[in-house]
């Protein structure tokens, strides 16, 4: 009562500070405030002051309590537990800590404090209610705003999506899980040739088409069951105008929020045109342009399939080649040749009566008929027979009747054993067998023939390397001069020391070498070796002092094949070889078969004539086996006739066949009359030798005198005969 007001105030403040501390300690744990304890206490102090002032105000008003309640809510003392804590401290400590300077009567103090508490509670509740309402409202407004924003964005996206849907060139359709079509776009309607409304009344199950891939419905069932999310197929659809729409269709499953199948979405791309183009390209790629028959590609595919067929299936193949087709082309022109092929194709096609028969043209004049799983060999040979019969009637082209002959190789057997290449090789070999047998016939493949042909084939393949590897060697067979029994020379005979097959005679490889052209380098090699050998023998002979007229050099005979004969380098090569060896041209006799010269004109004979003029001897080999045109003999540049062994066989007997004796004698006389010497091959008996000498034959060759042998063995013969 006596204290100064300032001091009173100070004391009051200290009390209220302590009150705020107690208050803070009680309330802080139940607030959600982010203030620190110190901050919170600072925050509470002004409120404590307000309460302290109110408690002592004259006249007393509890209004400040409401303010304090509002401020406490603002300080996030909003937990329901906060209010008892707030009021508890006010109840217990407010009067105590705010009344030091101006103590109120106890009852008055308690009454005022109660009224202040009521006001705090009222202010607190009102503020809390207001805040709750405000927050709820602002949250609702936020939710609404967010929803509006989402909806607007959604609407925008839907507008965009609708535009995509409607303007898409791809067909889009939606159906429910029962298959009922719910929506389609314009592109789909146009593709189907129906209105959108019409389509919406349909079900996806209406569109089963016989052209559907087999697994479409399995995949679709999986999709409907929710086991598959999408699949893609090529699917045909019937259009109202009877045409077929081909589509590339993707079906996707649309699921609901819970993942349950809700709708099926189909995206369809019209591939009708593309498919037609593809089919046409495929047709073109697999058919022969000229005849319209399937071509080699299609045939190869079918053959592959037939040969790899599972189960006990068989196959039959007729491989047909027109005999002498080249002559038709050469003599009548390709236009006629083409027409002929078209007619042949038609006739062959007419023989193929079953879908299991595929007739194809696989090359120029090569046709095949492939039979899938024939009933037996008879069905295949019957087809071959029919094919030959169908071609038997001459074909009329431009008023000209052309006879068509063909050779057919048949391969027939169980599937799964041979590969396509093996089958084709066998068919080829067999067809050539039919041709070799005269043509216009069929032959059945047999393993032995195949093996022989394959053997030939492999020899052919190894020929070039053989020359490089020095696998060839020469043997010589002496030629005996009948007048005195001396060795006149020797014929060089080539052999092949094959690394696998051993020693092979010329009959095994010369035809192939001739065929492949290897005969040219091989022939040149033989020529070099033989001429070199002649030089060596001549040197030996001179060294041995054996008397021999310089006009009669020891000679080597070398065979010249038709291809060599026509080779442009024949003359220079031969001259070069002779010069390299340093021997005279008459040390060499080139043997040419009569048949190689038949029909040769003057130009073709020119190289031989040049060689003959140089002094090289020319022998006409195998004379009498070909078309022996005696009149022709005069103009050939030959110096010797080599009479084929067939003429001398009759002389082996004793007494000799008089007809043969007359015949051979006649030829010898004739030859001599033309200035030609005569050599006889194949002399095997003494009787023959005697007879030939009597007939005035010039030289002889044969086992009777000597077998072919190595070069080193030859000098022994002239020593012996000399």
């Amino acid at each position, binding site marked *: 009562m006596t204290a100064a007001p300032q001091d009173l105030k100070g004391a009051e403040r200290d009390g209220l500070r302590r009150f705020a501390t107690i208050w803070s300690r009680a309330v802080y744990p139940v607030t959600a405030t982010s203030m620190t304890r*110190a901050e919170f206490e600072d925050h509470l102090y002004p409120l404590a002051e307000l309460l302290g002032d109110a408690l002592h105000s004259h006249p007393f008003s509890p209004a400040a309590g409401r303010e304090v309640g509002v401020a406490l809510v603002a300080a*996030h003392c909003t937990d329901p537990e906060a209010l008892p804590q707030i009021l508890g401290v006010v109840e217990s400590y407010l009067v105590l800590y705010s009344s030091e300077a101006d103590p109120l009567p106890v009852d008055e103090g308690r009454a005022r404090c109660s009224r202040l508490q009521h006001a705090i509670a009222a202010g607190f509740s009102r503020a809390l209610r207001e805040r709750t309402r405000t927050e709820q409202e602002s*949250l609702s407004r*936020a939710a609404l705003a967010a929803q509006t924003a989402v909806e607007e*964005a959604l609407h925008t996206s839907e507008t965009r999506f609708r535009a995509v849907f409607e303007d898409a060139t791809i067909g889009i359709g*939606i159906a429910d899980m029962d298959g009922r079509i*719910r929506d389609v776009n314009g592109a789909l309607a146009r593709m189907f040739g129906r209105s959108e409304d019409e389509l919406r009344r349909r079900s996806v199950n209406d569109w089963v088409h016989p052209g559907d891939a087999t697994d479409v419905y399995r995949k679709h069932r999986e999709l409907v069951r929710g086991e598959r999310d999408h699949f893609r197929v090529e699917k045909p659809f019937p259009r109202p105008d009877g045409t077929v729409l081909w589509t590339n269709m993707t079906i996707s499953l649309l699921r609901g929020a819970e993942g349950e199948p809700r709708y099926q979405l189909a995206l369809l791309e019209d591939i009708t045109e593309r498919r037609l183009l593809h089919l046409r390209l495929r047709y073109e790629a697999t058919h022969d342009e000229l005849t319209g028959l399937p071509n080699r590609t299609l045939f190869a595919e079918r053959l592959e399939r037939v040969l790899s067929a599972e189960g006990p299936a068989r196959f039959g193949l007729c491989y047909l080649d027109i005999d002498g087709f080249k002559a038709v082309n050469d003599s009548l022109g390709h236009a006629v040749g083409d027409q002929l092929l078209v007619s042949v194709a038609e006739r062959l096609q007419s023989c193929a009566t079953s879908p299991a028969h595929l007739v194809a043209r696989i090359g120029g004049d090569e046709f095949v008929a492939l039979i899938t799983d024939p009933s037996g060999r008879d069905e295949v040979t019957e087809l071959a027979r029919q094919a030959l019969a169908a071609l038997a009637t001459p074909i009329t082209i431009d008023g000209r009747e052309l006879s068509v002959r063909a050779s057919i190789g048949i391969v027939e057997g169980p599937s799964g054993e041979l590969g396509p290449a093996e089958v084709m090789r066998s068919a080829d070999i067999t067809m050539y067998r039919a041709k070799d047998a005269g043509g216009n016939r069929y032959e059945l493949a047999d393993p032995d023939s195949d093996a022989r042909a394959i053997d030939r084939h492999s020899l052919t393949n190894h020929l070039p390397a053989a020359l490089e590897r020095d696998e060839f060697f020469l043997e010589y067979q002496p030629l005996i001069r009948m007048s005195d029994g001396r060795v006149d020379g020797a014929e060089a005979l080539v052999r092949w020391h094959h690394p696998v097959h051993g020693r092979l005679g010329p009959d095994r490889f010369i035809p192939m070498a001739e065929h492949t052209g290897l005969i040219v380098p091989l022939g040149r090699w033989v020529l070099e070796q033989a001429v070199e050998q002649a030089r060596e023998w001549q040197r030996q002979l001179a060294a041995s002092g054996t008397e021999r007229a310089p006009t009669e050099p020891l000679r080597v005979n070398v065979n010249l094949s038709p291809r060599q004969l026509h080779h442009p380098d024949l003359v220079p090569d031969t001259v070069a070889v002779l010069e390299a060896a340093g021997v005279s041209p008459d040390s060499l006799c080139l043997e040419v078969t009569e048949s190689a010269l038949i029909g040769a004109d003057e130009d073709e004979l020119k190289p031989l004539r040049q060689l003959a003029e140089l002094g090289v001897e020319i022998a006409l080999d195998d004379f009498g086996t070909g078309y022996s045109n005696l009149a022709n003999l005069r103009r050939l540049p030959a110096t010797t006739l080599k009479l084929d062994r067939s003429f001398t066989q009759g002389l082996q007997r004793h007494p000799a066949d008089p007809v043969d004796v007359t015949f051979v004698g006649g030829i010898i006389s004739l030859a001599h009359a033309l200035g030609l010497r005569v050599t006889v091959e194949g002399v095997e008996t003494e009787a023959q030798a005697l007879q030939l000498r009597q007939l005035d034959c010039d030289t002889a060759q044969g086992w009777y005198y000597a077998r072919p042998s190595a070069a080193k063995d030859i000098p022994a013969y002239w020593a012996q005969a000399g």
Partner: protein
Amino acid sequence: MNKLETLMERPAWAPQGIDLTVPSVSRIYDYYLGGSHNFEVDRDAGRKATEAWPGLPKIMQANRAFMRRAIRYAAEQGVTQFLDIGSGIPTFGNVHEVALKADPAAHVVYVDNDPVAVAHSRAVLHDCDQADVVSADFRSPQDVLLSTEVERLLDFDRPVAVLLVALLHFVEDKDDPWKTVAEFRDALAPGSLLVLSHAGEGETRRPARAEEFMDVYRNFGSPLSLRPREEVLRFFDGFELVEPGLVAMPRWRPDSPPEQEDPVTFGGFAGVGTVPASGHLG
């Protein structure tokens, strides 16, 4: 006729819808803090969660307090740009309030993927030029960094404080939050800060009914990943942790003795890292 739209799956560019029957992490957080920015579904979830882990409101409060101290710390370092990702429903003691109080020139961008939180933030920030909100997801950093709001308010040539407060435990390992944090880090200038708090065991044991609590969040599609300290520490790869390092929330640069705090708030981790100056010339 326009049935189709509702039949089709939403294209990726269409916004997500809002389903107010599903609880929201940010509204539950508001509920924990005693706010009324929540619906019954949120309160229901919040009540269940609190029942299983009774200290939750206190933890949230401590989290708010840590955030406020960290903002002040940033301002003391001269960092006045703030990017608060996973900001939630604005409530008392917001980043921009604290930041503006610390430095009136501060700029703040809030980021959240909850459209309601974003809409509410937008309303609250309507009159504030220095703060704005972006509707984006932490998992798509480019959406955040390239947003017009970020472009307008934040200058990445200068330090920025990135706040990932009570966010990363909502990002599952399969989304590789470490990689995402690194992506944000790579956009930051030296001196920038990472302010991070993360739920975990910390100094306290997991409550007995922790699984029940986790289920509440898992059930509405926001599973929680309580990570051990090492894993939380890895978020600071490429940052230098400032004192006192990664600690329990009440221990991070406290205003008052941490012992006064509720023991429950010592679960989890809080820390601040700074982007070191590039190069090591000094």
